[in-house]
């Protein structure tokens, strides 16, 4: 088996604020011109250009054989996306090196390069070309892509007239037909309605089985367990564990349960349903979610979000609370809800915490946690016996058949 990817001592250093604040040429020149003045005054000040640094990745090394499907897990900010970016050549490493054999395709997001003024057809070609597909390849797969995206009727209208769902479906359709030898996927969310999501997941499965080498980041442990043979856990910019998927995922979940504090910025530690750990047995009883946090700094006017996401990454229900004030240090947050009639299955609790606003009003992300262990809903299925038609909710219905004829039946 050839080595598809070999990574050795890879490291990536960022200077804080590199992205957030850029110099202006004016500042830079002004600073340079003032240098003689500073020298004359004999000041001790530093050049002012040295900013605090963080290592997003440090000494990361591993080997991937051709055909392996590897999951990349870790908490928010651990370094997974940075690793994918380096392997995609979007950004360069600071130390170390990586050898790659084969055509690499990266899906760090869907719909890259989509332009609202262009039609669906034009955007398919543009997006495909940007991903790295040749014109002929795109033309060959065009009909399949359009059919997968279910936008055939609108393919020649500018996508600014598409709904967000349609745009995402088209974007995902192009991405799904991209067949590089090595695929790097960064949590590309499956979107659209339930049926489309199932299709996307199915396509992912298919791709995983074709012998391609895949490296993908996910917060859904169930996906990792199902699709991956091997899993690498990145924690605090280093490889913490690298082994069979089941083992690594279990270790990761166990670490979460122990309320281990990750690197700075990880606030959520543990969660449970009061009295029931992480399993729901009755969807119609009042329940309380309890989340334990430890905050490095107090939060004012913040936003707390709690969402429940199913296996297809669809948000089933979510709550958001603004104007939250939380002190520094360890504490507990409880969310009481009157009922949660969900279809039996495995779900993920997603907790997010923002300071001074939320993600729409420009608040700062404090932590986003795809909680482990997952929420297991272990109730009797009450709605349609077939999963396909039952949907997300688990609500019983009583049918009454009457033999009586209607008094007057209007002609059809």
């Amino acid at each position: 088996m050839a080595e598809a990817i070999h990574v050795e001592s890879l490291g990536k250093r960022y200077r804080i604020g590199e992205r957030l604040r850029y110099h202006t040429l004016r500042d830079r020149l002004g600073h340079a011109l003032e240098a003689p003045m500073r020298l004359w005054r004999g000041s001790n000040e530093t050049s002012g250009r040295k900013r605090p640094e963080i290592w997003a990745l440090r000494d990361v090394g591993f080997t991937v054989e051709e055909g392996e499907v590897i999951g990349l897990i870790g908490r928010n900010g651990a370094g997974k996306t940075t690793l994918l970016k380096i392997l995609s050549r979007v950004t360069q490493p600071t130390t170390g090196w990586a050898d790659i054999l084969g055509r690499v395709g990266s899906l760090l997001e869907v719909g890259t390069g989509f332009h609202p003024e262009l039609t669906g057809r034009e955007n398919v070609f543009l997006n495909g070309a940007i991903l790295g597909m040749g014109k002929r390849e795109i033309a060959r797969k065009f009909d399949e892509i359009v059919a997968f995206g279910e936008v055939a009727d609108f393919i020649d209208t500018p996508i600014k007239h598409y709904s967000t769902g349609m745009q995402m479906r088209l974007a995902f359709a192009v991405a799904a037909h991209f067949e590089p030898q090595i695929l790097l996927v960064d949590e590309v969310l499956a979107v659209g309605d339930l049926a489309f999501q199932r299709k996307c997941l199915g396509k992912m499965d298919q791709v995983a089985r074709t012998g391609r080498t895949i490296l993908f980041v996910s917060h859904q442990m169930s996906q990792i367990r199902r699709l991956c043979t091997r899993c690498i856990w990145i924690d605090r910019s280093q490889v913490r564990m690298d082994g069979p998927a089941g083992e690594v995922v279990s270790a990761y979940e166990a670490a979460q349960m122990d309320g281990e504090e990750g690197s700075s910025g990880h606030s959520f530690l543990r969660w449970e349903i009061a009295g029931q750990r992480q399993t729901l047995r009755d969807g119609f009883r009042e329940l309380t979610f309890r989340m334990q946090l430890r905050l490095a700094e107090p939060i004012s006017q913040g936003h707390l979000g709690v969402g429940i996401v199913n296996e297809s990454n669809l948000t089933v229900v979510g709550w958001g609370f603004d104007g939250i004030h939380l002190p520094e240090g360890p504490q507990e947050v409880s969310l009481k809800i009157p009922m949660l009639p969900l279809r039996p299955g495995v779900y993920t609790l997603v907790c997010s915490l923002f300071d001074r606003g939320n993600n729409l009003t420009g608040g700062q992300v404090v932590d986003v946690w795809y909680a482990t262990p997952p929420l297991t809903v272990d109730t009797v299925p009450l709605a349609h016996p077939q999963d396909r038609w039952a949907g997300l909710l688990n609500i019983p219905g009583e049918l009454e058949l009457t033999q009586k004829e209607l008094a007057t039946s209007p002609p059809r």
Partner: protein
Amino acid sequence: MQTDIAMSPGPGAAARKLRIAPSQGLLKLHLGELWEYRELLYFFVWRDIKVRYKQTAIGAAWAVLQPFLTMLVFSLFFGKLAKIPANGLPYPVFYYCALLPWIYFAGALQSATNVVVEQQRVITKIYFPRVVLPISAVVAGLVDFAISFLVLLALMAYYRIAPTPAVVWLPVFLMLAVATALGMGLWLSALNAFYRDVRYIVPFLVQFWMFASPVAYPSSLVPEKWRWLYGLNPMVGVIEGFRWALTGQGVPPGPMMAASAMAVVLVVFSGLVYYRSMEGSIADVV
């Protein structure tokens, strides 16, 4: 530090080994890689043009209106009122011949400077040789150029001025304008990614440059002893060349143009090298 690329599997290439590492050599331009991404370059140019023409009602008409209206204003103020000599040509033709390559150059320079920051989303998600972006900006401007060129021919027909056989040199002068826009554009777009106020410097630069070029006046106005300095500006060669090739009037570009052409080649080459050297970190700052 730069990403050193041994061989790069572009679209459609067979499996080859690729090494990603912090830089080694500064002078590796990897032009072969550029060739592999030629389809992407085509798509960027195609997108630029499509979007430009879809977005405004006057879209395509602007390609014609801009040089035409500027020509009218120049003819009135510099020509009729200020009575600047025009090599014996009717004012409209005199100015339009110069405005044609000039407007291409100014537009290409500004779009090339802005393109990297504008395409921030694509740059931070996908790899392609970043130099494709300024190249696409410079190439996309040629479409507008072609359209306004047709208007020039109409204008010349109206004034009954026939193009001279020297018109075969036109592509050469155009290439010089393209190369100058590309060379400057490479430097400016890279700097703009790091220092965001650079894009605001460009309009001033262009203004100054226009007056340093024989757009509004013939270069015969420049005193003999300063001609050599004046001739270092590559656009001098381009514009005088355009006027001479199309109308036979004015001075054919001489050795000065060769000198400025060499300077341009240097700027392009150094721009490509600079680009390659900072390509690796551009996604971190854009």
